[in-house]
């Protein structure tokens, strides 16, 4: 033998996908939303927030890995993706230090402490957001109105919450506005300004087979059904399902956060349960909880149940069915 050949276990061919490619796909899918988001809130401020979130994530990932003497993995795009998702979850007029801190928190306590990509039990971007939300409730709920850039602390969700809290009913003037929710005009998270861009991005990911339909469908479906039930019971107190779907972070959550590979179940059945749990918890927290928005909490809560769901939904192995005939 003059030349040694390669030997490895079968299969000797590969589909070609890599983790980095999939991450890039997610970033591509987010680009339209990012563009719309930046555009709606006045180019400069949101761009800075976005950039700082990404820098916070990537720099802390690189620094952590450098200190621990590990290979630097910021090239795989997962830190950048976390940064973008985190930014989309923050008010576009956030102070600079908050964006940076959020990025660092997301990567350090959300991901690297557990050993890096693939081992984190919770969605890093949501950890970042939730840490900020609980730490700085005022700054995290100071929103801007799209286009007019007027500073407000009101979002449709908080309007409804406050009104119901005070009077037990949604006042007519708010109700009248709710119809226009589809077309923006409200302050608040991303869902308001670019619900359709998010859906398009989500569909792109499903088409690219980066994610499957299970989680988005069961998330949105269960949120729709549950809110529809409440709405049908008392429409003066509970807002309509369409309102729920297109406000807050629900679309972003359903397509981009709840579908995060690492922190969600791997079995299709588990994914359905996961999505349904997210949807139900979101609506319950929105309607009855102390916080006006529940997407982030519900996804984190379901993240913590992921290992259990995986265990309970282990597929029945081939050949276990009893023979017919």
């Amino acid at each position, binding site marked *: *033998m003059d*030349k040694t*050949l*390669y*030997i*490895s*276990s*079968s*299969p*000797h*061919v*590969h*589909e070609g*996908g*890599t*983790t980095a*490619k*999939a991450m890039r796909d997610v970033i591509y899918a987010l680009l339209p939303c990012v563009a719309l988001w930046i555009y709606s809130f006045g180019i400069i401020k949101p761009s800075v927030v976005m950039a700082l979130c990404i820098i916070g994530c990537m720099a802390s990932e690189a620094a952590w890995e450098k200190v621990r003497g590990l290979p630097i993995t910021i090239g795989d795009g997962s830190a950048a993706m976390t940064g973008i998702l985190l930014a989309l979850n923050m008010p576009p007029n956030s102070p600079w230090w908050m964006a940076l801190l959020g990025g660092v928190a997301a990567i350090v306590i959300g991901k690297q402490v557990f*050993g*890096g*990509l*693939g*081992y984190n039990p919770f969605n890093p971007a949501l950890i970042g957001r939730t840490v900020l939300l609980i730490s700085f409730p005022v700054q995290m709920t100071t929103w801007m109105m799209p286009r007019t850039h007027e500073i407000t602390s009101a979002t449709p969700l908080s309007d409804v919450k406050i009104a119901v809290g005070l009077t037990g009913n949604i006042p007519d003037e708010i109700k009248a506005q709710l119809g226009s929710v589809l077309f923006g005009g409200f302050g608040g998270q991303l869902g308001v300004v670019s619900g359709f861009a998010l859906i398009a991005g989500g569909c792109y990911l499903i088409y690219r087979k980066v994610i*499957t339909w299970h989680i988005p469908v069961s998330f949105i479906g269960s949120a729709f059904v549950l809110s529809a039930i409440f709405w049908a019971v008392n429409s003066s107190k509970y807002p309509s399902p369409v309102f729920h779907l297109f406000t807050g972070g629900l679309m972003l959550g359903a397509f981009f956060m709840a579908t995060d*590979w*690492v*922190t*969600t*179940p*791997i*079995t*299709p059945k588990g*994914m359905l349960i996961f999505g349904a749990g997210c949807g139900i918890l979101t609506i319950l927290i929105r309607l009855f909880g102390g916080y006006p928005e529940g997407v982030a909490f519900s996804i984190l809560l379901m993240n913590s149940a992921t290992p259990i769901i*995986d265990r309970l939904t*282990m*597929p*029945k*192995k*081939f*050949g*276990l*069915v009893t*023979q*017919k005939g």
Partner: protein
Amino acid sequence: MELKTFKGGLHPPDNKAWSEKKAIEVCPLAEGDELVILLSQHIGAPAEACVKKGDFVKKGQVIATPKGFVSVPIHASTSGEVISVEPRLGTAGTKVPAVVIKADGQDTWDENLSGADPDTLTAQEIKDRIRDAGIVGMGGATFPTHVKLSPPEDKKIDHLILNGVECEPYLTADHRLMLEDPDNIIGGILILKKVLGVEKAIIGIEANKPDAIELMTKACAGRGIEVGALKVQYPQGAEKQLIYALTGREVPSGGLPMDCGCVVQNVGTAAAVNDAVRRGIPLIERIATVSGSAVNEPKNLRIKIGQPLGKLVEFCGGAKGELGKIIQGGPMMGMAAVSLDVPATRGTSGVLLFSEGQVLKEPEGPCVRCGNCVRACPAFILPTEIAFKTKKGMIDEAEKLNAMDCIECGSCTYICPARIPLIQYLRQAKGAIIAKRRKV
């Protein structure tokens, strides 16, 4: 046409166009060529050499006799002189017992071989002929056929399933055989039906071979054989998946096809059975596809058992570019060979040459739990979880996760974006579980 299929699996690019239109050619054998005939070319006990150095053997003569029930004899593939009986480099990359024959170029048949009319034979006589001809599963598993045809009394067999799926990419040997020699296959099927005493025989063919489906349908008409068109989906040709696709039955976990009333045979095996019973020809030749990015001229060849892979490649115009990997069998389940000196065996359904650049060298990354492997797995287990547990040495956990049900089709590894050699971990787990069970 409604296509049948199973659940799970995936669809790798089949790359069959390189060789599917090429008619089968005979790979030549010149005087003085060495044939290295391994004594273990089947699953089960190796055969024992019954010739010695210096003996002259004729084509088709028995050179090694079976030991035990799950074993078959080995025959000389050509006439010539036995130049040694010694361990030689085998398929698995280690040295194994072999008989080396130097061809005399005459290719003289052993005159003792004779055929018979299957209608005049009893089932047992046919089975004996099949065993004596050394027939094994030609799909690559090389399980002795006569054993498969002898189910225990209490297993009622009602289906004979013929595997013409050839779901492995690149390979076109079975495809060409069906196109060029349908009568031989059908003859074999009729014999197999008689041995098993079944009424129903189905040939499963993937829809990417429409010409074969059409031809076989026509040829089978009126002879009690159905043709089932199957969706192009890997691993459609895996025994359990094929049975499910064609009959809707699931082979019980840990069981055999006979446990759900089926016997599966490759179409190539059927042809070999026909040759053996009607014409008395033992299994000394087979059809193999030589293909891959590093082969000059991909071809389908009729090869002699014992020819070194290098000879086959040579006949196909030799290798081109920088050779990176040699694969015996298909790219999904085939084994990488250490050198072109390795001889072809009864299980060599193909020889693929991959260029250096085509070798997968990406390092294993961390599992990102995308779930691709779970969705692709036709055995419905969780490959990544098992791999993870195996990596940590938690063999009991791996066993609880049904590691033993893995059919090693490679779908999980093919689709894994983190490039984890999942199947290797699964094999490791299976090995460890078997070792543990033996100990207890």
